[in-house]
């Protein structure tokens, strides 16, 4: 879709590619966000009419994959729609607003980097909001995808940054999901299982953050149960202990009649809307990113590379590992609470090996030891699996094949071992882009 994807031809090919690269380099992130906002605005105002005009059954919800795979006749129309609604406004918006975007970016980067970050996030949310407003199907896909980002990222803290192989994430998620659900169901809803609400439901949304925190905290306490006995061991042994933990949690819930046993818990209030999930994901990404870039995070990498050497370099390895493990479990728990409230139903069967395999796949696909990698992995696997849904069984041939290819050509994942510096991402990009960035990061330090 972007111009530099055109195949270069003849002598001028190199030049054209350079120009495309220059163009991409010259636009700051804010410019792309302007373009994307323009695209989603266009879609929400004119999408339906344009779809009618192009003889499409409806606005292509997930880039047309949802029907084009079954009805090839609609592919040209879908392509035209995607070009007119997404590619063209994105490129035009980015190009036309390049100047102002750079100016705003420079102004903000110099005066108030925090405000700049918030502005970008606000834009991102606005785009997501407008995009999901077109269809509720997009909304539920977006919510589940954001939750997957949290899960993948928190798993990456243990499996990527700390270099252990932990399999207890579904267990943490289950603990969080049940703890959070119990708070909201017992506290704020009239349910057949637990009787009338203890507190007025109107107070609920105020308490929801508390439920999220509690879910995270319960998961972290559960993590303590794995961490204490297992950190005397490494590698395979931790994998086995943590796998056992997942099964223990699952069996525990299955046998606890009070929380519904294998039948699950139903009737969570509908509080996990898009803003809540988005804010949680942003806080999760920000905190984990700060954590792994901090001295703790560097210590974590040292433990991964050589525990004995790290100990010799005065790193308290036991404490470092413990902190990272509990931290990861906390976020898995929060993701679990959100998951339960998006589906408004939770049962222990969900938190089994399949869930584990999915999170692991997203993490390895995106890249070890990388915040951006986890985001890319979670988003791409989720969207891909949703877009290819009409293929039914073939989807399960295509996606694993993709994973195998990634493992062959990039054994550590798509974007592995890369630091995520949000300030560099939002820096202005005019003049010679690369120099600008270097100067900027120089100022930052």
């Amino acid at each position, binding site marked *: 879709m972007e111009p530099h994807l055109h195949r270069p031809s003849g002598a001028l090919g190199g030049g054209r590619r350079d120009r495309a690269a220059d163009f991409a380099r010259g636009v700051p992130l804010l410019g792309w966000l302007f373009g994307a906002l323009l695209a989603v605005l266009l879609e929400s105002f004119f999408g339906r009419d344009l779809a009618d005009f192009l003889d499409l059954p409806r606005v292509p919800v997930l880039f047309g994959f949802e029907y084009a795979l079954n009805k090839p006749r609609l592919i040209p129309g879908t392509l035209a729609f995607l*070009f007119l609604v997404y590619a063209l406004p994105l490129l035009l918006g980015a190009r036309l607003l390049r100047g102002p975007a750079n100016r705003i970016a420079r102004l903000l980067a110099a005066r108030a980097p925090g405000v700049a970050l918030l502005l970008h996030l606000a834009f991102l949310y606005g785009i997501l909001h407008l995009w999901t407003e077109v269809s509720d199907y997009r909304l539920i896909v977006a919510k589940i995808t954001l939750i997957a980002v949290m899960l993948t990222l928190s798993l990456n803290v243990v499996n990527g940054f700390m270099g252990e192989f932990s399999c207890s994430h579904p267990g943490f998620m289950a603990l969080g999901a049940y703890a959070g659900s119990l708070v909201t169901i017992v506290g704020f809803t009239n349910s057949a299982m637990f009787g009338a609400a203890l507190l007025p439901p109107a107070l609920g949304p105020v308490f929801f953050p508390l439920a999220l925190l509690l879910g995270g905290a319960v998961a972290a306490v559960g993590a303590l149960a794995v961490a204490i006995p297992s950190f005397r061991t490494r590698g395979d042994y931790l994998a086995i202990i943590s796998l056992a933990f997942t099964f223990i949690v699952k069996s525990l819930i*299955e046998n606890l009649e009070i929380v519904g046993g294998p039948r699950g818990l139903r009737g969570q209030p509908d509080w996990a809307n898009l803003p809540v999930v988005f804010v949680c994901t942003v806080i999760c990404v920000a905190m984990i990113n700060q954590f792994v870039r901090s001295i703790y995070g560097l210590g974590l990498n040292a433990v991964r590379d050589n525990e004995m050497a790290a100990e010799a370099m005065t790193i308290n390895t036991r404490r470092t590992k413990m902190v990272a493990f509990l931290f990861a479990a906390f976020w898995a728990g929060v993701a679990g609470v959100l998951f339960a409230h998006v589906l408004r*139903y939770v049962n222990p069967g969900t938190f089994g090996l399949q869930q584990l395999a999915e999170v692991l796949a997203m993490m390895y696909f995106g890249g070890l030891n990388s915040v951006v990698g986890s985001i890319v992995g979670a988003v791409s696997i989720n969207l891909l699996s949703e877009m290819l849904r009409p293929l039914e*069984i073939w989807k399960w041939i295509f996606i694993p094949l993709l994973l195998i290819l990634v493992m062959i050509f990039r054994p550590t994942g798509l974007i592995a071992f890369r630091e995520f510096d949000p300030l560099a991402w939002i820096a202005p990009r005019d003049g010679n882009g690369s120099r600008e960035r270097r100067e900027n990061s120089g100022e930052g330090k």
Partner: protein
Amino acid sequence: MKNVRLCTVLFAVLVAVLGLALFPAAAQKTPVLKIGINAEITGDIPKVGEATKYAAQMYVEDVNKAGGIEVGGKKYRLELAIEDNEAKAESAAKAATKLITVDEVIAIVGPQASKQAVPAGEVCNNYKTPMVSAWSTNPNTTKDRPYVFRACFLDDFQGPALSIFASQEYRFKKAAVLYDVASDYPKGLAEFFKKDWEKRNGPGSVVAYESFTTKDTDFSSQLTKIINSGAEFLFTPQYYNEVPLIVQQAKQLGWKKPILGSDSWASDELVKLCGKDCFGHFFVSHYASAGAKGATKEFIDRYKAKYGSIPDDVAALTWDAIGLIGAAIRNAGKLTGDVKKDREAVRNALAQTKDYPGITGTISFPPGSGDPIKCANIVKINDKGEFEFYKSVCP
């Protein structure tokens, strides 16, 4: 120069794409009604999804061959929108949302397994879209959800049906139960059975109540206890892939008494996996393929001719589920073309269903409930390995 040429080419491509897009589509004269299928096509239980798909496709072909479905003097063609829910709860919720908001279906059949049907039911109820699960037996699926229905009878009815059968047919007094404590269906059924049996035969009449966990393959310790308890028959409400292991191991340990099962036994695979060891045992079923008569037989013969296998209970129940929807559409009075109003009309017609002649029995919905009133069939696995209708038990 080259730039100009490139621009021309790009422009030409764009024009061509737009032109193709505007090419008039094959005009369809009869208006179309869409029915959604939310089935477990991939994942743990692909056979269930396959049967759902086949039965629904057969129904829709039938209706369309007859010129469509007639509502308020107007004919509509039926169309299926099939979604795979991968046998996952979140995927079922996503698939239901997609069917409702993207495909704008008028009603949905499935998901079939309760793990998927409960969250999908939540979605359907929120969007006020009628949903009929053919196979889900968890009470939560339809409870307090005016838009969600099911075509099968419930666990709390299957348990008593079996205990009535065992006490009337054999005058048994002592029962043994072996069930999977980690799976909600067997567990629920085991509980319902125990409650009813003890009500009939006094406390302590379930002499062995043994459990295991999903994916266990060795049941010898539980079976030894059961054999030593002096039970007169064994009830094991397990899935078709586990039953053969249990039955064969019981036989090896010297068990010769009858084994009774639940509707989860009913799959072609059971006899393939179990062989002769399963012959002569009984289970409760929604329908029986051998010895069927009338419309049921016709369905079985046609399904077999078309897909090459005998339809299992999922296929039969799906046939009834989509049939219920079809009948409700017919009885909806007049369709407005506004899918939200039409869904409301179909839902109201569905709730008033009375004595619908399904192939798994005559189905009625009592007021204010999505759980049907119908009879259970006791099926015997005969000496040829067929599921033979044995007796009908009504509550």
